[in-house]
């Protein structure tokens, strides 16, 4: 089971692992949330809140959908 329970209540910044730009995380961001890097457009996943850490989100697979 997953630990995506906790929220970050203050604005925080992380470095985009793709382009190195600063990415601002909004108030209330949760673990596993998907974000866009506004500089390079890559999708990021919040993999940890304490410490705050993002990684490149998994790329779209052929069986993804609704």
């Amino acid at each position: 089971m997953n630990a995506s329970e906790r929220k970050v209540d203050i604005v925080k910044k992380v470095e985009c692992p793709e382009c190195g730009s600063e990415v601002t995380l909004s108030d209330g961001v949760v673990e596993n949330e998907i974000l866009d890097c506004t500089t390079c457009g890559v999708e990021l996943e919040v993999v940890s809140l304490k410490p705050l850490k993002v990684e490149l989100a998994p790329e779209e697979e052929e069986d993804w959908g609704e």
Partner: protein
Amino acid sequence: MKKIKLGVLFSRLRLEEKLLFEEARKRKDVELVPIDSRELILSLDEHPKLDVILDREISQSRALYALQLFEGSDVWTVNSFEAVRIGGDKMLTSKVLHDAGVPTPNVKIAFTKESALGAIEEIGYPVVLKPVDGSWGRLMAKIENRTAAEAILEHKAHLSSYYHTVFYIQEYVKKPDRDIRAYVIDGETIGAAYRVSDHWLTNAALGGRTIPCPVTPELNELCLRACKAVGGQAIAVDLMETPHGLTVHEVNCAMEFKASMQSIEKNIPALLIDYCVKAAQGHQPKPKATLKTGDKTKAMAHA
């Protein structure tokens, strides 16, 4: 008060899942258990200590295997393995809709590029060629003539997945610059939105914008029949408007609703959680799909 233990199967936490989690956490009668499929290790006699599992898995194959194993226990799943199997396969969806008498576009299936060309010409140009297991308008082709058909079939035959040699060929339905996305939860069409685009594909994933759509008696009736046909509990139904009335072209089990939220008054995440609670409390009859595939196959599907 005994809390309902609600598992939510996911691997990608989009806005939809975030809202569902927020909604579930507001409820005093619900204990939310997020289930990240990336961390799962499942056994053949899986018995999750949960009352109900809501499938929000973005990967169709992961959802199917997980749901099949979860359903070996007493846990209720929304939607069921069978509904997800049908909804995730365009051929099966077309078949159940057709068998249930729900208006749906004419479709032919072929397994070689030569027979696919024959099927295309039987239907007549233009046609739409779709992957049987695709979503979001991915790899769909509107084919206007034989030259285009030959080129696209040649390319499809060389794509990596063997599913691309299952050729799903659908008549092209002339429609306005929009289609309809309607949501059915707990036997009710709770809202609908037009998806408008200048492109023939109106998927929100491809930039189609949404505006409110009234739930007419015709729309409601077709959506409920489509939902029943796939054995769905909480689904999205995609329909097109034709001169002869509405036609259902797709059913989505782990439906996305982000793009429709501004056009629908009802709170979809809240209704989904409400339904899961109700289902877990045993107030729901188990829905069954209406796939007519012969006794042997049917027995396997429901095993």
